[in-house]
């Protein structure tokens, strides 16, 4: 397959502007003749559905939750980046572009990332106008804080609930369009297949999660804002419902899946405490503005942390990365924590943890200031662990948090299937091999508010779209396919629960495709996942019926897709014989244990093509060219 990424040429500062100028338009009176389907209503999907509605398109939007306000974007804590340079500290669009590209270890497209940095400033304006209550200074201007991987203060925030406030902003804009009749919102419904007619995405098959009814929806374009796939690891910071099903089913219909192995392991999460545990809770990166990370110098230190004197503490991030210190990027901070624990210096009962300590900040600023900045995060920590973080340092450990990989898209955010657009975490586009903190919210909203409304318009204007009936043979076939899978799951009537399979998959992924990967481990994992898959389809049990609200059935379909995706992730990780960003191959490291990139052989996007059940996926390579920034060994020392 040849990949046309439609990257503009010419000076990077002008590329998005000239692309927009060269796009075709749809006149206002004709917009209502088009119908766009939006799946997922988080930051990316919700912002896109609202913006398309405002333009005058007919939009039908879907979410599996009971309301679009519940999308997992809501859980983002720390903030959103924008190149406003309100602090006068040397920030600029070019610097945000450079930091993001470098943070991603030079595995993203220059033009995409530059556009992201450009529209970042519009996002803040839009959100303020919507009534998002960002933190402010006493003079009434917007406040900022710092985040990992940057030496400027460019992160806007609303306490520790930035994602919530941005999502509520998008949700309110969306509900305004629902009230006007421009957007039809269908909740408690999940997408189970993509309808492709004459090579174009023309609709979706959905299952009503309350009644079990399968429906066909036809449209002129389909947008997926369906989030990431971190739950392939079972334990992650994602919401329990977050899943890859919409993306995976689109992949099976021909959409390429890019860089699936690029997973972000977040350094500061509350450590696992027991077998029954259902999810991991993040402690925002913003805590690293004031918290200092350390581990005891001695092996198997038994003293209580407040009894360990300064000379017996190793502030290892400050020691190894003096210029970025505690604000080293996530992949680097996570690996450093792993190394410390591997050496036997980990803390807590399991030995899988390090300290995040606020003692010095509290002495310097007072407990009240710390409470004002991070109060809700401290509260979450105390609630879960039963320990008071104002008195004792937090214990933290890395956990799966975000997936940089996703469906392959071109510069227009269109997948390899014309008419299928993929936004936000669901696509692979902007973060390369590692995402910087406070950039996920930025990308979701950039795609939804400021990129997709232009590119979708252009697609509709330049494409001849035949009228399609809901009983079109391809549509009926897709529905039969979805019904067939549901019936198959219901009729296995095996002995193991869906969750048991999910845990097993998650453990395999974490052990072999987690923070460190190697050739033998990945090969083992590919075989192991094949065994899990075979057993799943013979021995899973799904109680109840398919014609009813059935949470086990929903989960069974999602886990079935995670199993297949997990295998592709391992294949991708095996193929990429270099280390970059969050992808750390043990065979490829510098003498200091840092990631060793191989630009000569691996400076490309790996876009995988589905070749059918049981067949090996095919690798397509999109080379990455760097005209404006010279890739260098990433250093935060």
């Amino acid at each position: 397959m040849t990949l046309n990424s439609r990257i503009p040429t010419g000076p990077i500062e002008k590329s998005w502007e000239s692309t927009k100028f060269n796009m075709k338009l749809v006149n206002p009176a004709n917009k209502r003749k088009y119908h766009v389907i939006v799946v997922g209503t988080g930051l990316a999907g919700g912002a896109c559905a609202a913006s398309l509605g405002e333009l005058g398109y007919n939009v039908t939007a879907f979410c599996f939750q009971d309301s679009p306000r519940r999308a997992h974007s809501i859980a983002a804590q720390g903030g959103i980046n924008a190149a406003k340079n309100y602090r006068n500290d040397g920030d600029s669009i070019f610097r945000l572009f450079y930091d993001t590209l470098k943070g991603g270890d030079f595995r993203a497209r220059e033009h995409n990332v530059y556009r992201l940095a450009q529209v970042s400033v519009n996002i803040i304006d839009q959100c303020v106008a919507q009534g998002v209550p960002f933190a402010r200074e006493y003079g009434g201007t917007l406040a900022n804080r710092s985040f990992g991987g940057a030496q400027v203060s460019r992160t806007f925030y609303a306490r520790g609930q930035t994602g919530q406030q941005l999502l509520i902003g998008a949700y309110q804009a969306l509900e305004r369009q629902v009230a006007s009749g421009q957007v039809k919102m269908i909740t408690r419904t999940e997408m189970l297949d993509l309808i492709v007619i004459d090579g174009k995405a023309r609709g979706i098959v959905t299952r009503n999660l309350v009644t079990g009814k399968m429906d066909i929806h036809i449209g002129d374009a389909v947008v997926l804002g369906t989030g990431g796939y971190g739950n392939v690891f079972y334990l992650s910071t994602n919401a329990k419902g977050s899943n890859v099903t919409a993306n995976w089913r689109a992949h099976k219909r021909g959409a390429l899946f890019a860089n699936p192995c690029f997973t972000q392991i977040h350094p500061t999460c509350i450590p696992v405490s027991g077998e029954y545990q259902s999810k991991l809770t993040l402690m925002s990166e913003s805590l690293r503005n004031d918290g200092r990370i350390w581990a005891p110098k001695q092996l198997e230190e038994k003293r209580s942390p407040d009894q360990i004197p300064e000379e017996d503490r190793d502030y290892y991030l400050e020691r190894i990365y003096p210029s970025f210190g505690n604000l080293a990027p996530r992949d680097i901070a996570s690996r450093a924590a792993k190394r410390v624990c591997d050496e036997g210096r980990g803390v807590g009962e399991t030995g899988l943890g390090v300290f995040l300590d606020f003692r010095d900040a509290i002495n310097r600023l007072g407990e009240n200031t710390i409470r004002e900045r991070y109060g809700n995060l401290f509260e979450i920590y105390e609630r879960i662990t039963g320990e008071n973080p104002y008195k004792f340092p937090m214990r933290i450990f890395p956990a799966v948090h975000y997936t940089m990989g996703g469906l392959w898209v071109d510069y227009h955010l269109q997948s390899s299937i014309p008419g299928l657009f993929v936004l936000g975490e669901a696509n692979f586009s902007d973060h390369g091999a590692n995402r910087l903190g406070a950039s996920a919210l930025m990308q979701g909203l950039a795609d939804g508010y400021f990129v997709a409304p232009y590119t979708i318009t252009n697609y509709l204007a330049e494409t001849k779209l035949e009228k399609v009936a809901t009983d079109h043979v391809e549509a009926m076939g897709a529905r039969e396919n979805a019904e067939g899978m549901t019936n198959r799951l219901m009729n296995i009537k095996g002995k193991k629960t869906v969750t048991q399979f999910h845990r097993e998959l998650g453990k395999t992924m974490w052990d072999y495709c987690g923070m460190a990967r190697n050739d033998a481990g990945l090969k083992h994992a590919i075989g192991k996942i094949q065994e899990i898959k075979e057993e799943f389809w013979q021995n899973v049990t799904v109680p109840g019926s398919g014609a009813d609200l059935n949470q086990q059935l929903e989960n069974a379909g999602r886990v079935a897709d995670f199993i297949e995706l997990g295998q592709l992730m391992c294949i991708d990780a095996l193929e990429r014989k270099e280390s970059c960003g969050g992808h750390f191959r043990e065979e490829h490291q510098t003498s200091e244990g840092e990631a060793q990139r191989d630009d000569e052989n691996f400076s490309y996007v790996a876009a995988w093509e589905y070749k059918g059940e049981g067949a090996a996926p095919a690798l397509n390579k999109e080379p990455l060219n760097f005209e404006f920034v010279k890739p260098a060994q990433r250093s935060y020392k």
Partner: protein
Amino acid sequence: MKLTLNVWRQNGAATPGKMVRYEMPDVNADMSFLEMLDVLNEDLIAKGEQPIAFEHDCREGICGSCGFMINGRANGGFSKTTVCQLHMRHYKDGDELFIEPWRASAFPVVKDLMVDRSSFDRIIQAGGFISVPTGSAPDGNAIPIPKSNSDRAMDAAACIGCGACVASCPNASASLFTGAKISHLNLLPQGQPEKLDRALKMVTVMNEEMFGSCTNIQECEATCPKGISIENIAIMNRHYVEASFSQRPAMSEAGAG
């Protein structure tokens, strides 16, 4: 610890429900309440029985999906807590718990502990937004906002839309939910052009959705997982009364030419 659970089981809004008793012989104190239900559900599935349906998603107290009555109190009556954040260390060996869905005619039961809260979305649709189409915003710092106003707006905006306020109110009033949104937006300069219209329309829809009236019982504030203050109900009432006097439809919405 050993617990006895009585859980409301109901197939749908149209079918009657009943309490069913389950013994939990070995509950770990570090589990969350939902993790305890996960364990019970795994047991039920193994025995070939139907697992208990309950709403949940983020499991960190921010999405607002989860919530039910425990011993007659919303989220067990613990302050500033959702059930996903409620850990079993708050209970003791031998406790017997009664678990029921939110009770309000505006929240019909979907299944077991799940209810339909789409009435909240319809209240937002009535005016819980600022009409600013994408692309039409001035610079973020063009309008300075006093920090105290911004902070108060944020206090109100912290609402997670879970419905605990309705469930805990003897009148099943949605005043705290509606008031929080009205005051979040009406406290900000950006919210001023639609301030009175918003109050009028949102309160009207709240009443149409069959929520009860507020009689200042304050249970809502006491059980709100985010500690939203009933001050917001006062703000709502003030703006609603003002709007009732002053708001009337414009003579003509069409422009010349």
